[in-house]
Every structure is written in C-alpha cells, then in structure tokens.
C-alpha cells in the first residue's frame, strides 16, 4: 500500500517558475510538493531553452525597438504594464537572489555595434528613444572605433562606433537557478517528485486529488507551472480561455576558445534581420544568438537543423572574424510558449472555474521576473484561503557544490586534503572532479543529465565522450544500481541497456 501523500500546495513543474514559487512557499509553515515530469529541476522545456540573460537597460531597449518593427501596430512600450513592472522589480532583486542561491554568474557589458553611417543613425535614434522612456534606459555611452577595438580586440575592423552600457546585464545558467532553488526549497521542507507525470486532477469534497504516474497526491491548492504543457495541465484543473503557441530557436554553443574572443554581449543595431549576435556565457563558452523565432505547431519539434546553425555562425563571423564553424560543440533547440490571449503578457491568475487552481503561465523572459511573479502567486494563494504563517527557521541560503576548476591552488589543496576524490579529475574538458560528481549525486542527481547539469561534467568540447562511461560507473556505484539501469535523463533513456555477451545467449 502506497502511503497517501498530503499537501497544502502541489506545484506542477520544476522549471524556473515552479522552483521559485516552491522556494517562496517554503518560507511558510506549509506542506508543499513539486511534481516534475523530468528527472531534474530546470532540465527541460523553457528553462533549458532560456538564454540566461538577466537584463534591463540597453538590451531591453533594443528588444522594444525590434518588437515595434515586427509588429508596428502593437503599442510600443508601456512602462506601467504588469510585465515591465515585474521585469524591473525582478532585475533589482537579482543580486541578492544569486548571492543567496550561490550560483555562478557573469556581469557583461552590452554593446551595440555600428559598421556604417546608417547604423550609427539607427543607434542615435535608439538613444533618443531611450531618453523618452526614462532614466533606466537613458544611460548608454558612445565608443569610437578605437575604444571599441580596445574593449573588443577581436571585433571586425569595419566597426565605426558602438553604443554600450555597463551594469545592466548578468549572465547565468538558467538550470543553475532552478536546481539551486529546488535544493534550497528541499532544505526548507518542500517535497519533490521527479520523473513523475501528472495525469489528472480530481475535485473532491474540500480537497483536490492530483493523480500522477507515481500515485495520487491529496492537496488543497494547485499551482500550474507546467510551462510548455501549461495548457494540458490547465485543462485538468478547470476551464481556460487561452491556448499556447510555440516558437523555436536554435543556439549554437562554441568552444571556450571562441568564448575568449568576446567579452561583451554583442548586438547589431536593432533593425529587422539583425539584432543579437553573440555573448560569452557564464561557463566561458560563446553562445551565438539567432535573433529570430520560428513559429511551430509541434512543441516537441526539438530537432536541430545544421543549415540554421551555420547561418547563425556565418552572421556572427561577420563581426568576430576569428570564430569558426569548427568551434561548435553543441547546438540546441529552444522551445518557447506564448499564450493566445495576449502573447506579450503572462497569465498569473486563478482558474475561472476553480479558485484553488492557480495558473502561472510565464512567457520569455521568465527568469528576470520569476521572483516578483512567485510572490504574486503566493499572494493569490493567500487570497484563495491559504494560511501564510512564516517559518522562523527558513534559511534562504544554499551553498554550491565546490567548483574545483575555479579554486586557487591553496583552496584546491585544502579540498583534496578533506576529500581525496576532489583530486581525481573525471571530466577533462571542464575539469570536474569525482568529489563534485559524488556530491551532485548526494544532492539528488540520479542520471547522467542530473550530474551534467549540476556539475558541467560532459558539457565541454568532447560532450561526454571521455567522461560519460566514468560518470555512469560512479552513478552505479553511489546509487548501488546496475549500470544497465542508469538513465541518460529520464526513465526510458538507458545509456547501456545490455551486459556484454547478453545478446549472444
């Protein structure tokens, strides 16, 4: 007999939105359970697809302009819109947030490059536009050719001038935040059910029953943070007057060699077909931006197309001539959802027919406003009758797995002296040690992807070719599970399903 799990709140989805809400709820004396289809927090859907750019200022300004060109009839910028308010509030909360979660981040300069007089004009009108909006957007500075090349020595010599700003862009790995928040929420008492799919919600007398592939969960409130599947999950809770549309992007990730060539987030002037070029990532790779979204009917349309990636690289190469298509170590497809009611906005509200079922349907950018949105969801839950009694022992801080590669030799020596496994490098491309992998497993990684997203093992230039057999062995040893049952990411994705000689019998 499976023990019936009882909760005050069930959150469906452990992406950025779900884990932020979970962590916010863990401040209160509540039983919260997060149900996630995938094997780890932040490993799938929109969170995995997110670019990890936490921005305001110049980047936001350029996105406004691009949007106005693509949809000339739409209202350009409404500083009072809920979305913009949350973005601005959220950006101001970022430093404390990432400090508490102890995740890696990288502050970047934003640079918009002009290579001819027309583009300079485009940038001039950008400045004017920003001044019209307000102080947050009015601060970009000009750099002449010489300064541009001093700031970015590998930039094309065709540069004439650029507009740049500091302090308005931070790069993070989106899944780092989701994983850190899931760990912190767990620390504060939240329960997590991974590899668990929600198959239905039943309305009972005074409670709701969430039926999952791992048994039912009895709960009073439900939060739908299911991202790409938010529509399907919403239907389980009640009626909806919105649907989802999907767009895909393809982002090639380049080797660290290329990452060293660029220091800022580089953009072309915001004119159609141009825009973002590339930016170094928090891991030191170079991410080439597409700047375009392709609509798709199929939310599982995750196949990459080589031509697409090549085009993007050729575009970036015009600005950074030294990068090469040979530098590509990975090209991933990102899927994003927009709601059909107002694709510019998020839907954060109780279901029309079920006040105890909150839909939190967040469109991109989803990381910047995550905290204000989560706090709003908590308020909505309170309005719906959830008692919010603060927990005196709530601890907002979580510590990261030691990052051997970033430590000084003195720190490395100390760490190895404490635990010899930190001296044994397993992933040679990213310099990830056995100690880090074992710690990731202790914190809940049960798959190769779980280890990869927590430690970066297998994310480097050889993409796990060397270390994956070793990671599989460590997983099997630590979890006391046969190698044949170690999964890549989720049930049904075994790495090595058969033992030697098994197929000969």
């Amino acid at each position, binding site marked *: 007999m499976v023990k019936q799990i009882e909760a005050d709140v069930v959150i469906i989805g452990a992406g950025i939105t779900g884990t932020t809400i979970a962590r916010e709820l863990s401040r209160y004396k509540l039983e919260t359970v997060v149900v996630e289809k995938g094997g780890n927090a932040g490993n799938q859907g929109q969170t995995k697809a997110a670019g990890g750019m936490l921005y305001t200022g110049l980047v936001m300004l350029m996105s406004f302009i691009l949007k106005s060109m693509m949809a000339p009839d739409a209202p350009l910028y409404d500083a009072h819109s809920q979305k913009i308010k949350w973005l601005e509030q959220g950006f101001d909360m970022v430093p404390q947030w990432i400090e508490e979660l102890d995740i890696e981040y990288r502050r970047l300069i934003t640079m918009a490059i002009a290579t001819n007089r027309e583009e300079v004009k485009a940038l001039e009108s950008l400045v004017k536009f920003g001044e019209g909006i307000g102080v947050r957007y009015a601060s970009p500075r000009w750099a002449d050719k010489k300064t541009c090349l001093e700031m970015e020595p590998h930039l094309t010599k065709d540069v004439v001038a650029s507009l740049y700003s500091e302090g308005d862009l931070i790069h993070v790995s989106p899944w780092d935040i989701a994983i850190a928040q899931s760990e912190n929420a767990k620390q504060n008492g939240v329960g997590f059910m991974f590899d668990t799919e929600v198959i239905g919600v039943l309305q009972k007398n005074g409670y709701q029953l969430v039926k999952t592939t791992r048994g039912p969960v009895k709960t009073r409130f439900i939060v739908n943070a299911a991202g790409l599947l938010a529509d399907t999950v919403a239907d389980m809770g009640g009626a909806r007057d919105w649907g989802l549309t999907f767009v895909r992007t393809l982002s090639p990730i380049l080797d660290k060699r290329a990452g060293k060539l660029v220091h800022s987030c580089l953009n072309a002037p915001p004119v159609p077909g141009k825009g973002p070029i590339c930016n170094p990532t928090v891991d030191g790779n170079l991410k080439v931006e597409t700047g375009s979204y392709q609509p798709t009917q199929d939310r599982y349309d995750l196949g990459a197309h080589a031509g697409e990636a090549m085009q993007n690289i050729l575009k970036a190469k015009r600005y950074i001539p030294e990068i090469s298509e040979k530098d590509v170590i990975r090209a991933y497809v990102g899927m994003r959802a927009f709601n059909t009611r107002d694709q510019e906005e998020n839907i954060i509200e109780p279901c029309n027919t079920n006040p105890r079922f909150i839909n939190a349907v967040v469109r991109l950018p989803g990381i910047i406003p995550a905290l204000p949105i989560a706090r709003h969801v908590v308020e909505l839950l309170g309005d719906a009758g959830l008692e919010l009694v603060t927990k005196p022992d709530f601890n907002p801080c979580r510590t990261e797995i030691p990052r051997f590669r970033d430590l000084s030799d003195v720190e490395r020596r100390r760490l190895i002296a404490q635990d010899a496994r930190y001296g044994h490098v397993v992933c040679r491309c990213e310099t990830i040690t056995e100690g880090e992998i074992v710690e990731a497993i202790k914190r809940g990684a049960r798959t190769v992807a779980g280890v990869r997203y927590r430690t970066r093992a297998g994310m480097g230039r050889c993409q796990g070719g060397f270390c994956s057999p070793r990671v599989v062995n460590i997983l099997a040893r630590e979890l006391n599970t046969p190698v044949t049952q170690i999964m890549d990411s989720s049930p049904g994705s075994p790495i090595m399903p058969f033992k*030697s*000689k098994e197929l*000969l*019998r």
Partner: protein
Amino acid sequence: MAKETKIICIMCPLACQVMMSMDDKGNITSVINYLCKQGEKYAIAECKFPGRILTTTVLTEGSSHKLLPVKTDKPVPRASLMEVMYSLSQTKVKPPIKMGQIIVSNIKKLGVDVISTDELPA
C-alpha cells in the same frame, strides 16, 4: 558448377577487385583484374581459405576488470566466426591470467586455440 567470385585486395589502398573463376571442383581456373603479384597471391589465399583471426573478449570473475581481451591463435574460417562467439559467451575466467595463456583450446574443434591478449592480475 563453375563459379566466379570477386575478391577485394587489401594489400594496398588501390583495392583491386580481383575476379576469380573456379571449376566445379573448386579449383581456381583464372585470376584477373589485379595490378601486382601481391594481389594475385592474396586473392588466391583468400579464395582458398577465407579465414580471420578472431579478436574478442571473455567475461571474468573475481577481478576488477570486467573483461579479458582474447584472440584466436590461428585464423578461423569466416563462416565459423559467430559459432565461436556463441561458444565463448559462456566462458568465464578467473585471475591470475598471463598474456598468451590458452583460454579455450581447440574451440569448436576448429583446431584453433583462444588465447589471452592481456594479463589479468590477481
């Protein structure tokens, strides 16, 4: 019945496609389409006895190494390779094993021994 076979020579990158004709008794009657003596020699040998050194592994017991690499000491007829594999899948060895040690002698009565190609330390 007379028969024709094509044999790709592996002696050099040229990879001559040597054509062999045989009479009904299996005697080679003609060899054509090769560019050097080596090719002719190889094709005749390959036609008479298409044998291969089989390299594979056997399971171990009581060792940190899960497998021991092995090979046959003489070529195995090509048609018998899988038969040898099925038979060897049942074999398990215990350390210590020295390199070159016989693991299975006269496997499947083919007149070849299976020998270890590495050591398995105790």
